[in-house]
């Protein structure tokens, strides 16, 4: 058979393998082989050089500025009390610090607010993956009756009555059109710019051995080997953007609500990023786990066994020191990020 078309994605990986293999051969002893293996492992966590923006919604400063303004504007909600930033609060790791989200009029939501950090690389958003991408997701909470409760036609009318917004949409899109599509594109563009900065872990990956402690280095090894955490929390964002049942006691079937004919997706939820994770307690899709230590213990011995549980889950048998090392490692993933200012919102009094 012939390969008739297609482009290999494997060239870079093959190069890494070859370099690693060469190092092993040249060294000829266990220590060199271990160093080469660690080097190969570290390469899997290297940060990308730039933010990807889709062709259909390319970046511009004006669009991002508009999205930033919309994101913080409570007028995007029906009652005028809730903005995107109310739940996705930059001061709280772009979530809300609550076990489960709260919509307008103090309505209790069913799941925890996910962070929106580093979503430029994500696919299938929401805990159950029901949104294809950021443009699709951006207006979902606005229109949801329990969240921001704002019918889109009313929002378009509301924004169109504000001269400052008419100007900002014109600058962003070259026309006066205020629509669901342009609102979504602007918010999505702003969201793509929200990228965590380099953390101590990244500096260690780059070769600074003093960037993280020995306990965290041991934790990194456990994370990738005995703990099997990297089976799902993989890559520089520490997520595979996949859907897994991690054995939490819950009636919420997660991804299976979208794909009911796939039993392995029952109770499956999207793998969250671990970047800046110590800023985002409580944890899990239902906010049921209070601390990172408790998260590690859940994966060690605390999860429910059932047919849909991820095949990557196993009883780990971690020692107390290993639990501490894993938590120490997780703390090295937190970066000092850029301050995101709260924008001055355009008013009806502003001239065009």
């Amino acid at each position: 058979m012939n390969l008739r078309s297609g482009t290999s994605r494997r060239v870079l990986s093959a190069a890494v393998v070859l370099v690693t293999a060469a190092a092993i051969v040249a060294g000829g002893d266990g220590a060199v082989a271990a160093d080469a293996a660690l080097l190969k492992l570290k390469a899997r966590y290297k940060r990308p050089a730039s933010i990807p923006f889709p062709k259909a919604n390319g970046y511009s400063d004006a669009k991002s500025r508009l999205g930033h303004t919309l994101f913080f504007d409570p007028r995007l909600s029906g009652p005028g009390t809730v903005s995107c930033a109310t739940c996705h609060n930059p001061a709280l790791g772009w979530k809300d610090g609550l076990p489960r989200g709260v919509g307008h009029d103090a309505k209790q939501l069913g799941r925890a607010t996910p962070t929106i950090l580093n979503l430029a690389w994500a696919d299938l958003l929401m805990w159950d993956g029901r949104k294809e991408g950021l443009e699709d997701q951006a207006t979902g909470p606005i229109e949801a009756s329990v969240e921001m409760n704002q019918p889109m036609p009313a929002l378009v009318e509301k924004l169109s009555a504000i001269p400052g917004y008419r100007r900002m949409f014109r600058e962003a899109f070259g026309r006066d059109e205020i629509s669901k599509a342009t609102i979504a594109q602007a918010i999505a563009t702003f969201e793509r710019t929200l990228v965590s900065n380099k953390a101590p872990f990244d500096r260690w990956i780059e070769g600074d051995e003093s960037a993280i402690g020995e306990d965290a280095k041991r934790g990194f090894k456990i994370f990738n080997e005995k703990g099997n955490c990297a089976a799902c929390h993989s890559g520089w964002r520490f997520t595979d953007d996949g859907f897994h049942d991690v054995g939490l006691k819950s009636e919420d079937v997660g991804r299976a609500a979208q794909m009911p004919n796939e039993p392995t997706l029952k109770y499956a939820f999207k793998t969250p990023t671990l970047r800046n994770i110590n800023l985002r307690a409580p944890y899990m899709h239902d906010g049921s786990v209070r601390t990172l230590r408790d998260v590690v213990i859940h994966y060690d011995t605390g999860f429910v066994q059932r047919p849909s549980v991820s095949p990557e889950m196993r009883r780990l048998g971690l020692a107390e020191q290993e639990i501490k090392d894993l938590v120490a490692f997780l703390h090295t993933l937190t970066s000092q990020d850029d301050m995101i200012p709260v924008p001055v919102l355009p008013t009806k009094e502003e001239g065009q």
Partner: protein
Amino acid sequence: MKNPMTIALVVASMLIASAASGALSIVQKEKQFSEEAITVKNGEMVRFINDDNVTHNIAIKDPSGANKPGIMQKPGEQSDVKFDQAGEHEVRCLIHPKMKMSVKVD
């Protein structure tokens, strides 16, 4: 120096040669399919090989938009899939939906 495409084709050829059945082979490694898009003849088999260290669940959406049930594959397992409907098929891992490729059937 060989260009990356040449190297890619050599690697791909080696993988194809290793397939015992002679079927066109797609390897899953590091949560990616080895190809983004392939074209096959109507009725041709494609072998999906899980060379990863995690389980995958391949789902195929045929040209009519209908989804076939997922095929669970533990590490090391492989599955042969016959493509006998002309048009574009989307292949995706249900566990890791970023893994996707297309199979065009002539």
